[in-house]
């Protein structure tokens, strides 16, 4: 379990690095396009590149987002529930999340087979969509495994786990 957790932690760091690199690349890509346009030479396919990199940004950071307790939840009733119940609710939430992300990984992977068969690609520079669907599937699967491990950990030691914070986005 500890070894598996270490492997997962390493993979989460890697996926976050992918997401972060994609974000920097998107900024550079659009900036190059804007500056190029000023000189009458916009970057061909800039929008295609941004769209596909966006997939890496969204799902690259998903596992770390969960690890940091970043998913918004309604905590108004938390003080009313016993500590043990809160710990179990956290474990069940993580399990539900694991099932959802496993579902995303599987359905998007299945969809990528169709994209590959039909040669689906972006409009301008024909980036194959299947590659990015694979990346999405892999990141979603990693998130699912991470959430499953958290769920097991919480279920095994429910009373000792402190509730995780909720991140606010607005």
């Amino acid at each position, binding site marked *: 379990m500890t070894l598996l957790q270490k492997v997962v932690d390493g993979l989460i760091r890697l996926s*976050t690095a992918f*997401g*972060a690199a994609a*974000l*920097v690349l*998107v*900024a550079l890509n*659009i*900036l190059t*396009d*804007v500056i190029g346009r000023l000189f009458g030479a916009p970057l061909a396919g800039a*929008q295609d590149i*941004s*769209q*596909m990199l*966006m*997939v890496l*940004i*969204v*799902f*690259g*950071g*998903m596992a*770390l*987002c969960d690890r*940091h307790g*970043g*998913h*918004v*939840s*309604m*905590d*108004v*009733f*938390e003080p009313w529930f016993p500590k043990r119940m*809160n710990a179990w*609710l*956290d474990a*069940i*939430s993580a399990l*539900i*999340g694991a099932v*959802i992300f496993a*579902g*995303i990984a599987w*359905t*998007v992977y*299945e*969809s990528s087979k169709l994209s590959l068969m039909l040669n689906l690609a972006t409009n301008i520079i024909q980036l194959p*969509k299947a590659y*990015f*669907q694979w990346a*999405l599937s892999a990141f979603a699967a990693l998130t699912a495994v991470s959430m499953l491990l958290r769920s097991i950990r919480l279920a095994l030691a429910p009373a000792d786990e402190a509730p995780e914070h*909720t*991140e*606010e*986005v*607005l």
Partner: protein
Amino acid sequence: MSPELTGALGLVALVILLVLRVPVAFSMFAVGFVGVWSLGSLSSATSLLASETFTLSSSAELVVVPLFILMGNIATVTGLSRKLYDAAYAIVGQVRGGLASATVVGCGGFAALCGSSVASALTMGKVSLAEMERFSYSPRLSTGSVAAGGTLGILIPPSTGFVVYAILTQQSIGRLFLAGVLPGILLSLLFILLITIVCTFRPSMGPAGPSTTMSEKVGALVGALPIILIILITIGGIYGGIFSPVEAAAVGAALVILSGLISRTLSLGDFWIAVRDSVTTTATVMLILIAAHLLNPFLALSHIPQLVGDFLTGLDVGPYGVLALILLCYIVLGCFLEGFAMLVLTMPIFFPVITQLGFDPIWFGVLVVLSLEMGLISPPVGVNCFIVKSVAPNVKLSDVFVGVLPFWAMMVVALVLLIMFPQIALFLPDSMIG
């Protein structure tokens, strides 16, 4: 089982999951998926899950989200908020309540760099609360001005709230950004008016700060010049039709990074933290959006929005009565639900009613975002109040909530003014985009 009954059971299940603290996105995924499965088929539910996930994740319009979040995060780590506050302080700090007014101005300025209310309240709170304490400001006034001023983050563009509303209702992000400018300025002025009135009648609540010399004023303004320029270039670029919102976000992020590098306030470690936090916050926002796109088809299949629409339009209260009821719902829900979640949960139900009644969707977007702002300072889940409390541990939470009450009342005034004069919101988008 009829689709309507299935829909009602789905909504009950959603509420139960939310009460049991299952994250909003997961609850919506679960109910949406099972709902589409029960009213359609398993294959339609799995197809929807795959297609909506990839389509939303690769949306060209939504690239604006991580870029504006990055811009705000870099602005935070490089201390740009401090310079904004210093400039506002130099101008209005020496009048009664001036520090609180400077906080509101600073929050408004920071809001133009960052689409997050929480980030605005947190960063400006760190800068201004200590100063106000030093000059013996009433804790209620100081914390109230920070918590309320921070909410300007989701009204003044760039705003995450507007981006989410635009995606959910298929409206133009650019038009919504434009529509938020004048209401944002109006609300800032109302806050300042309130502070001035309070400090005129009770001077002890906000004594005047020390006066600054002209050279100090000029120095503070010069210090804030890069930020003002960045705001003018990015937001002005959208208004001038030079940039799309996505391009403005990329240019803004690059300029903030450049400013940090030139002023040597941005280290590699800070940069990594800002980028990493931007990626994880984007994940939070996007997952809820994807989940909303799974829940919406279920609600449509169950005819729930149509039923609610028929009920509301059937009430003998007129269109503005229905609008008032909907806004009242937002204000009440804002006391219990996180604003962003409230937006995605209610929009599929209320938006068709609004369009059916013939109201302008851009104007309604501004009203909704203003209502979300009120939720950010409404007890018991007024997030901005908790944020301010975390920055000012010596102030009682009850004082923070009492302190925001007059500001909350000013938001009601702004809401009424916007309903009476829709042009406050629509003038800029109508005149600049058409």
